[in-house]
């Protein structure tokens, strides 16, 4: 049943995906409203799907596809919060494709499950998953914002007539969206890693720092911290911030992919 709702959600997000591609080339108020409504409806289906999963018990949560589904939902929540504050749908240009991709993968019926049968503290595990995914979602937003910033900066610098009629919000607004997501995501990410260590310690008795999953997660966290620091200390934005954000994003992808290699954090069908 949960999967059915998720597929409904996927159909709604598809409209958002189309919007993301169209918005790059031209501006249409009507279309952005349609995409917004479709996305909201998608979130409702998505929420129902997640609730059904939750009722299924904590172990199911650790399934990789359910994880992706949760990440997609959290990203959409961020997107909606930003819309509520800034009244702009333009982060959707980045968020919609990511959400669509994650939901699409999750809605396919193969479900490798994390090897969590030894995990003794289920509460910590759930906290770990939610915290880390919130951190990921914030990172996706911040990455998206830094790309949009770059785009808007180029447009303004090009001094073309189109700089005035672009669909993008003002440069400083994009900057704020990015910075706030970054600031919000950092504590979640940090706490997520800490809870993860707690789970690891209680399960294996120690944390293996040479495990690819842990190594890459720490690398991602380090890049994240550098981003927050440079932004806070010397206000890095534009090109330099986008490079850092891309690094962090790639590190996050790598850390995710490490689930397939890690000895302690691995999936099994």
């Amino acid at each position, binding site marked *: 049943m949960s999967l059915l709702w998720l597929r409904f959600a996927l159909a709604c997000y598809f409209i958002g995906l189309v919007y993301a591609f169209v918005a790059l080339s031209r501006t249409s108020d009507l279309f952005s409203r349609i995409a917004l409504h479709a996305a909201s409806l998608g979130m409702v289906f998505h929420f129902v799907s997640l609730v059904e999963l939750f009722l299924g018990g904590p172990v199911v949560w650790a399934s990789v596809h359910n994880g992706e589904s949760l990440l997609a939902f959290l990203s959409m929540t961020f997107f909606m919060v930003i819309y509520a504050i800034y009244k702009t749908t333009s982060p959707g240009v980045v968020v919609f494709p990511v959400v669509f991709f994650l939901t699409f993968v999750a809605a396919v019926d193969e479900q490798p499950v994390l090897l969590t049968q030894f995990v003794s503290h289920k509460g910590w595990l759930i906290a770990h998953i939610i915290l880390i995914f919130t951190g990921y979602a914030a990172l996706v937003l911040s990455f998206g914002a830094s790309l949009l910033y770059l785009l*808007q*900066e180029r447009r*303004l*610098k090009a*001094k*073309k*007539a*189109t*700089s*005035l*009629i*672009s669909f993008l*919000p*003002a*440069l*400083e*607004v994009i900057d*704020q969206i990015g910075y706030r997501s970054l600031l919000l995501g950092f504590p979640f990410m940090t706490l997520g890693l800490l809870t993860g260590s707690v789970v690891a310690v209680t399960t294996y008795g120690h944390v293996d720092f040479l495990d690819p999953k842990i190594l890459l997660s720490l690398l991602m966290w380090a890049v994240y911290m550098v981003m927050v620091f440079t932004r806070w*200390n*010397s*206000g*890095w*934005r*534009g*090109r*330099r911030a986008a490079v850092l954000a891309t690094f962090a994003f790639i590190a996050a992808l790598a850390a995710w992919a490490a689930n397939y290699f890690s000895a302690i954090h691995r999936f099994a069908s």
Partner: protein
Amino acid sequence: MRFQLIGVNHKSAPLEVRERLAIPESRLPDTCRDLAAYPGIEEAMVISTCNRVEIVTHTTNGAADLRGFLHEHFHLEAEELDPHLYEFREKDAVRHIFRVASSLDSMVVGEAQILGQVKEAYATARAVGAVRGQLDQLFSRAFAVAKRVRTETAVGSSSVSIASVAVELAKKIFGTLEGKTVFIVGAGKMSELAARHLMAHGCASIFVANRTYDRAIGLAQKFNGQAIKFEDLYNTCDRADIVITSTGAPHAIFRREHGEQFLARRKNRPMFFIDIAVPRDVSQDMAKLDGIFAYDIDDLQQAVSTHVADRRKEAERAEAIISSEVEKFEARISTLDVVPTIVSLQDHLETIRQAEIDRVRGRMGQLTPEQEIAIEALTRGIINKVMHTPITTLKTAAKESEATTVVDVVRRLFNLRDKDKEAAHAAAKKDEVGTRQ
């Protein structure tokens, strides 16, 4: 039709020349009066905006020394001023006025401000009596043409002035302008206008720096802002989010090293430079820095012509309207030119005829009614026969370019000068009543 126009605009002259020619509103009436009293000028009007200063006149012989007036009035040397001046006569002057009023000659084609400014200039000149019959005709028609262009073409749609473009751009960079700080470098009319627009959209505080500190203080007081000594410019500039710069400096005053310094102090928060100075105040190097957004006057102009292609098409249609209106106006004015001449010629001959009849009566004593009728018919017949050809020639000439020459010859031959002027006035008035109806 002896219209003569001289002036400078944003295309012909840099800001510094325009600024020196700009006539403050308070002095406009006096300037109009001076002009109207200048040799060879019958009627005169002055249009002075931040993009143009133009003198429009109707002259006695079509060749008044308007350049001379400008040199005298502004105490400027010929070589300083003349390269920037353009001069139009007769039909070309009419076309130019129509284009200006229709906002086709504006920096931002289609912006609506200019029509209001021309109307004000017209009202001012009219109030002091410098505008009467001919210029009255010209400008009434120009306003009608402007209206026609506005309603029949889309040239005026999404029209924006430079100042509002600056505001739009600032909003694209900063989002809201609430609480932003503006720095005016070099006090000028245009920067003042841009600053006023920015303040109206929420900018909180303002700094003014000028080479002449007193002018900085004057302008700062207008905005409740703070005057900054020019030496302190680089130390304070980073406190501003938006810098409007329009100094007359021959080289860029903001260079790359300054930009880097500002950004470091501002923690890379972006800065928006509105560079309306010619030559530019912000160097190309500095404009390339990330976080510095510098728009010079041409960029602003370009940013405005958003719908370039559409606009060009609309502007072409507008030009076509103007051409046909110029033809119509010319035809009308020329006919008007000969009508009073014909009337006064007839009056003149009638006076002679009456005088001669009286003389005959005096010599021959009382005439019988039959004789009266015969003399009346005879003299009238002769005059009508004699008059027939000149009147036909005048009427035909009215439609040709030689109208003024023919009219001049007739006037001179019959010594019609003074009477003709009065008649022209009467005719103009009659026509004005006619158009109002």
